[in-house]
């Protein structure tokens, strides 16, 4: 597809050059036909508009007489051109990482419902999110119930295919999960503005903290005691610095018990162990209003510390100690459709016994339209005590269906 686009551009440029710079050649019949065809483009649009009928004042009838929900689909395609083999899940060079189908509508005057189904080659079909939301509550409260992205940190609230990088930052992958942290439960939020700027407090309780490992079995269900459920809080602070720039500084915390592998148990192979995360995220955005189609800049960082309960059991094989990680991400808009991005990651990797992992990555992002994205990424990963390696990845995403607002 890229090659085809490139060829199309090259051909267009040649034709343009022939038409404009070399009038002598323009006398040739072939070129003349091409020129006439190109000239017809613009006029065709004008004619098309003129043909379009006028709608009388007062509006047409309902635009959705059958009350159908909005249905949309997003495809997330990956290719890995790394020199030493693929780094994608399953070792594929080309992969359909996920197809997400979203169904969204008002349920009744009180609730809005959203369902996101995920399909991929490795895990089959899954209910990624399914929740109802209501703001018909006193005190300006909003509540949601079901499965949703846990309000912890900044990027965790963005669908993976909507990221401006190919994967979540390493600290999120290691501390929250490769596909981010989701939960099934209830969440309540309240918007505040006692100091004149936007603040929001979100409180969440979910069935369990993180995704359950099906291979682990505890003597009693981890969620048997209410205190073992997953609990999260997030406090957002957003300030407009100028009309063109703003900053968001937020703090998040999540705690709960998770099943962790333990040897030598009479019943099962895991015990519930408390794990907590505390994070702070900062996002600075700049977009000049008049040139906003062509120029923008975002600088974002998150710092997360993981606390693990001390377990004296000698057979315990789960994470121990406390670990810290973070990332810094920047993206500058080069043209109307092109962006240049970079990210630096570091963390004390619990999967490597707390050894430091560093990674640096660069991205070239191109949006043919609002509904498609091409992303070329290079990443250098350097774990302490292990060999560094490089990744060369290409991502193409596309969206079908109604225009959905882009989360801020």
């Amino acid at each position, binding site marked *: 597809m890229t090659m085809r686009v490139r060829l199309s551009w090259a051909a*267009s440029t040649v034709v343009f050059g022939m038409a404009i710079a070399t009038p002598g050649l323009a006398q040739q019949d072939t070129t003349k036909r091409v020129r*006439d065809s190109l*000239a017809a483009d613009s006029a065709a649009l004008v004619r098309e508009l003129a043909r379009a009928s006028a709608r009388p004042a007062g509006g047409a009838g309902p635009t959705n007489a059958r009350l159908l929900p909005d249905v949309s689909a997003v495809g997330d395609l990956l290719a890995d051109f790394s020199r030493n083999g693929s780094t994608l899940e399953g070792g594929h060079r080309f992969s359909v990482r996920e197809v997400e189908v979203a169904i969204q509508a008002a349920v009744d005057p009180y609730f809005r419902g959203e369902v996101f189904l995920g399909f991929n080659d490795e895990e089959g079909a899954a209910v990624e999110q399914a929740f109802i939301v209501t703001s018909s509550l006193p005190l300006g409260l909003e509540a949601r119930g079901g499965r949703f992205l846990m309000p912890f940190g900044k990027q965790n609230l963005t669908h993976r295919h909507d990221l401006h990088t190919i994967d979540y930052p390493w600290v999120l992958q290691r501390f929250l999960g490769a596909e981010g942290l989701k939960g099934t439960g209830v969440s309540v939020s309240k918007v505040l503005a006692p100091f004149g*700027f*936007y603040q929001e407090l979100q409180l969440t309780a979910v069935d369990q903290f993180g995704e359950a490992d099906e291979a682990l079995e505890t003597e009693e269900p981890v969620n048997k005691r209410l205190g073992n459920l997953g609990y999260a809080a997030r406090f957002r602070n957003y300030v407009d610095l100028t009309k063109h720039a703003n900053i968001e500084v937020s703090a998040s915390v999540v705690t709960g018990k998770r099943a962790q592998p333990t040897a030598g148990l009479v019943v099962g192979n895991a015990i519930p162990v408390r794990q907590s995360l505390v994070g702070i995220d900062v996002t600075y955005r700049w977009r000049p209003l008049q040139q*906003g189609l062509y120029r923008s800049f975002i600088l974002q960082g998150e710092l997360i510390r993981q606390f693990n309960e001390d377990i004296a059991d000698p057979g315990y094989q789960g994470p121990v100690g406390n670990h810290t990680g973070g990332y810094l991400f920047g993206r500058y808009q080069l043209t*109307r459709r092109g962006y240049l991005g970079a990210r630096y990651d570091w963390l004390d990797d619990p999967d490597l016994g707390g050894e430091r992992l560093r990674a640096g990555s660069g991205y070239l992002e191109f949006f043919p339209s609002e509904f498609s994205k091409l992303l070329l990424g290079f990443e250098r990963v350097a774990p302490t005590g292990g060999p560094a390696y490089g990744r060369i990845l290409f991502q193409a995403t596309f969206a079908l269906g109604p225009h959905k*607002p882009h989360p801020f």
Partner: protein
Amino acid sequence: MRTIGRTGKTMIRALVAGAWLFAASSAAAQTRLKVVTSTTDLLYIAEQVGGNRIEGKHISEGYQDPHFVEAKPSFVLDLRRADVWAFVGLDLEIGWMSLLLNGARNPKIKPGAPGYVDVSKAIPVIDVPSGAVDRSQGDVHPLGNPHYWLDPDNGKRIARLFRDRFAELDPAGAGAYEKNLGAFEATLDRAAAEWAGARAALRGKPIVAWHTSWRYFAEYTGVDIVGFMEPKPGVPPSPSHLAGLIMTMKRRGAKVIIMEPYYDRKTADFVATKAGATVLVLPPSVGGAKGIDDYGGMIRHNILALAKAVE
């Protein structure tokens, strides 16, 4: 027992009068309709009709592309307290409006509520596509062209809609809204008389526009848009399209390219140079250029500037 002297009585009277005035002004402030609009044009017209019975804010700026507004949380705070949310409609705000309305959690401005004002309902919309519509046609608006405020006759329709809706929400002000509407229409009629000559001079004159946003303006003035910089709505121009457009401009004698201040002027300048034309940056909304602070002034500026350019 001590009695209050003349000075004391005077002070008490002054305090009572002050408290009464304060209470009265507070009550007046409390009863003012809080109106938030998506664009500056809608706000300007709402303020002309609402007078001192409303207080208003707008979301997008006049020099900003209204299709691409960031749904900043600070806008949520404005909408949280609003009695009226008035927007252009026809999917102009589709990329950001629902985020703000959901975030505001304000039942007064939810769809179906009296404070939810889709202004396009008062407009005879043009460019409604017939037949199948899909995104291969670009950033097409299936419900029709949303840039209707660039026709001053639609400005009057917008004002009448505001009169009706404000009177519904604030019946005590119905008389004032009617009176304000009359004054606004009279002002616009006087301005139209001033630009009538220039408008007549534009009839049939071939021009090129960047985006389809100038279609209503063309309907009103009679100017003939023979081509667009965009090959399809919302799609940036490609070299091949520009080559064709230059041919069209030469063949049709189009000597002016009009564009909004938020598009890339360099591309328009290049085409203008090749086609022997000039580029005219026009404010598409109130506040779209320095000194363009009122609706009639914006229309007047655009008509006069274009008439001068096509001479």
